């Protein structure tokens, strides 16, 4: 396996008003690495959606971004409630977000579909009452 860079973040579960810090930091780091704008855009949106999900649905977690020569791997891990029906959660429009979260503009049920759309591969490992780990890969041309 070739050399890679790792960025690690702890995602705070309490503060969904200012959530998204890790994604913003990743965007900065990837810019400094000189990656193409479109790649940065896809990585940072996919990560932001996952980060927000951990905050609003799972009380926080950790985020890791590994940058390899040929791909970027984003791993989001939480010890939240897990996802009972992944196929249902993946459907556009499905959301269990509460009123409070919706009033901030979240809860359209588009986050997981966006994560899939903007990445080349997405794996969801989830166990009810144990937690969820989502691994997304974006290939670098």
């Amino acid at each position, binding site marked *: 396996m070739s050399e890679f860079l790792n960025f690690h973040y702890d995602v705070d579960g309490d503060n969904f*008003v*200012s*959530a*998204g810090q890790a*994604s*913003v930091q990743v*965007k900065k780091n990837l810019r400094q690495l000189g990656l193409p*704008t*479109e790649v940065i*855009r896809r990585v*940072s*949106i996919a990560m*932001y*959606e996952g980060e927000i999900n951990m905050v609003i649905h799972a009380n926080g977690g950790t985020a890791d971004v590994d940058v390899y020569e040929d791909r970027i791997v984003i791993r989001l891990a939480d010890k939240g409630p897990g996802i009972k029906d992944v196929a249902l959660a993946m459907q556009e429009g499905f959301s269990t977000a509460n009123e409070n979260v919706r009033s*901030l*503009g*979240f*809860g*359209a*049920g*588009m*986050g997981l*579909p*966006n994560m899939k*759309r903007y990445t080349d591969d997405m794996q969801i490992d989830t166990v009810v009452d144990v937690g969820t780990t989502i691994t997304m890969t974006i290939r670098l041309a």
Partner: protein
Amino acid sequence: MTAAELIEKHGFHPIVLPDPERETEGCYIGDLLSWVMGKACAGNVWITIMSNVNTVAVASLSDVSLVLLAEGVTLEQSVAETALARGVNVASTDLPAFEAATAIAGDL
């Protein structure tokens, strides 16, 4: 047309303009953040009435050229500072979203 030129031409109220020379291209209207992240394109003018700190994060990550707050919606001072720090242009207008969009349509 640049963000600054668009704001000037239509008499929008500039809130923060850290990147005035940014070219505007096309437009997306919406308040649900994941829709915006899924559908807006880099360079778009994003017209919305959603004006919390998440709006700024989404604007930055989606790489839109300008957030145009419609219906006279304003931005809290602390959120405006975040927008400035992240290089996100924000302006406001009293026009509803549809009128704002039709006003700028010929310029994008």
